[in-house]
């Protein structure tokens, strides 16, 4: 065990897999010598060689196409897209190729690729370094989408993703790379050191895709969240002082629908929190699922707290970001009925 930040945990996952499996390799823009703009691949080229960890041309479509071809050959490539905002030039490759290869070829070929991308806001990155595109991937049949919220999960989920024979979009909430963030931007930054989930085994372990974590058990309302929002929701629950059950989805495809259903059937109330803009976001799917499965247990409307329906606005970061204040408001509203 060692105390690790999310960056260190992700780096460790890659290191473990590069060490264990000669078919694993990792590449992306600035990933090689430099170690990635967020330092997730730091030291890996030096340790494992340039053939296993290298820089690529600035071509997200090319990166993913290359990864798919390597995957079809039999490797397990881990591609980094420098920011999730820049994954869109590769969208066709992910949807039309990675996601569909196994199905259309009746299992003759498949794409066991992992696509890592720093994701989400809270770092004053403006429109194109802050977006949360998970809903776009969740709708695509054939893609898994994973979003860890802490170092322990990040490492275990990343190893599971690399070992998965399905294509996995692995979104890393960049605001919590170096410490948990509860949305109180006005307060001092925290590091991971004091957080229980920063205790990370140094070797190999996995956190299975498709299993949610119950961060906090509770009776009055279920809060569904993932990524940074787990910490925001947690803070809001504490501040509002309510016996809420907080579920960290960890992967949205596969989705742990049973954990969700059981919880809402118990509490009868549900608040969904995500950073992405609200309209057409993944919260809609969650709301629909909960409503379909828990209708007769629901005491009040399922509520969504999310980014506004605007592009990510640089100077208005904290007006846009669904912080603890807005979550508290939703919790209060949920309890009104």
């Amino acid at each position, binding site marked *: 065990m060692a105390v690790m930040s999310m960056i260190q945990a992700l780096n460790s996952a890659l290191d473990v897999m590069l060490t264990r499996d000669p078919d694993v390799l990792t590449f992306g823009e600035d990933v090689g010598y430099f170690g990635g703009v967020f330092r997730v691949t730091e030291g890996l080229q030096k340790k494992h060689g340039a053939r296993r960890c290298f820089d690529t041309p600035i071509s997200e479509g*090319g990166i993913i196409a290359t990864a798919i*071809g390597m995957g079809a*050959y039999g490797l397990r490539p881990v591609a980094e897209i420098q920011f999730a905002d820049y994954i869109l030039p590769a969208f066709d490759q992910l949807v039309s*190729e990675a996601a569909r290869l196994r199905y*259309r070829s*009746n299992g*003759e*070929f498949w794409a066991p690729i992992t696509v890592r991308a720093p994701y989400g806001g809270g770092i004053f990155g403006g429109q194109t370094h802050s977006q949360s595109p998970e809903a776009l991937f969740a709708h695509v049949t054939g893609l898994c989408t994973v979003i860890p919220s802490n170092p322990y999960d990040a490492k275990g989920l990343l190893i599971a993703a690399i070992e998965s024979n399905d294509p996995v979009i692995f979104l890393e909430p960049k605001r919590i790379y170096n410490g948990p963030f509860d949305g109180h931007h006005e307060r001092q930054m925290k590091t991971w050191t004091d957080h229980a989930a920063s205790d990370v085994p140094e070797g190999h372990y996995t956190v299975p895709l498709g299993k949610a974590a119950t961060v906090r058990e509770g009776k009055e309302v279920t809060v569904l969240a993932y990524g940074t929002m787990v910490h925001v929701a947690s803070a809001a629950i504490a501040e509002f002082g309510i016996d809420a059950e907080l579920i960290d989805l960890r992967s949205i495809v596969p989705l742990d629908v049973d954990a969700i259903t059981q919880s809402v059937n118990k509490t009868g109330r549900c608040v969904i929190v995500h950073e992405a803009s609200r309209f057409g976001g993944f919260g809609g799917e969650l709301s629909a699922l909960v409503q379909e499965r828990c209708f007769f247990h629901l005491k009040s409307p399922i509520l969504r707290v999310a980014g506004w329906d605007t592009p990510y606005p640089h100077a208005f970061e904290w007006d846009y970001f669904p912080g603890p204040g807005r979550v508290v408001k939703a919790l209060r509203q949920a309890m009104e009925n």
Partner: protein
Amino acid sequence: MCPFDLHIPAPPTRPGDEPDFSHLVIPPPGAVPRPEADVNASSESLRDTAYGLIRVLDNQGHAAGPWAPRIAPEKLRQGLRAMLLTRLFEDRMFRSHRQGKTSFFMKSTGEEAIGAAQSMVLGPRDMCFPTYRVLSWLMARGYPLIDLVNQIFSNEKDPLKGRQLPILYSARDYGFYSLSGNLGSRFGHAVGWAMASAYKNDDSLALAYIGEGSTAEGDFHEALTFASVYHAPVILCVTNNQWAISSYAGIAGAEETTFAAKAAGYGLPGLRVDGNDFLAVWAATEWAMARARANRGATLIEFFTYRVAGHSTSDDPARYRPADEGSQWPLGDPIARLKQHLIAIGEWDEARHVQCEAELVDTVRTTAKEGEAVGTLGHSKPPVSEMFEGVFETPDWRVREQRKELGV
């Protein structure tokens, strides 16, 4: 200042006009020198290969010039047979579509030399990343006809379990990567595959096809960039059959330069090859293969050919080009030309040809009937549960619940 004007390229002829290929510059066979395969990519000798036209067979069926390959007559006959089979099979399946037995079909008439020759030059562990117009690759490797028929009829025995549009085959054991309707999006997979081979110090190489129209996709450029940067052992082939559905090659840039010339921008060699000349295709492929084997990386090959048939069963080429343009194509018919060559070298004759053709017609007929007996579109299909299989390696609750809902 003078105002600008927008240039909209247009082909020289349209329906109602006489076919006219007089604008094409067709050098004689042997005109293009053959550089050493491991020549430096910036070598002047590669200008000829990209802007000329590598040809081997002349009008009398004689092989001429530095590119003339040495091929055992047995192999030539095998190639001829594969091309012939491709054409006969496609004719039959096209008719099956008219009879409602399949939803869709596409022919490669006039382009059969490309897949056939390349399939034979490459080894069993090499991988081709096909377009929908290289059926002859599979034919040359003896892929079971009945599997093709069942896939085309989407019947119970469809090897792709009814999940894919007809002709979008996948045949891993025959070095034939999974096809899809999206143009261009697998060109870069070939590069990734080749990079993986190099990464593993393997010796199998990759070969990718793309239509001249589809070279306009960003994927094409991205694939060439990666191939160039990492010296990937891949042969990148542009099949310039002059048409992209109704758009002539000028809409893809052919008014301005050749497709082989695109290689220069990546420091790759570019070869422009008579695609209707089995021997030229063979020779160019051998050159590219030798270059890759010398660890000099990728080669871009433009095959200059002509799409004789309509684009697909949904197309009527008479709407946008002169009737019968195909028969006027100055580079002839690849089957006729290889046949002529085999006869010229004393390894074939009319009688054998007639007999061979008759046998193949028979095989195709028998196999088509066999497939029909299994069933045709709408009359037979794999179990509906197959619709739900293979989305992920292990199905999740959505599949389980939805199967239940549908009762399968």
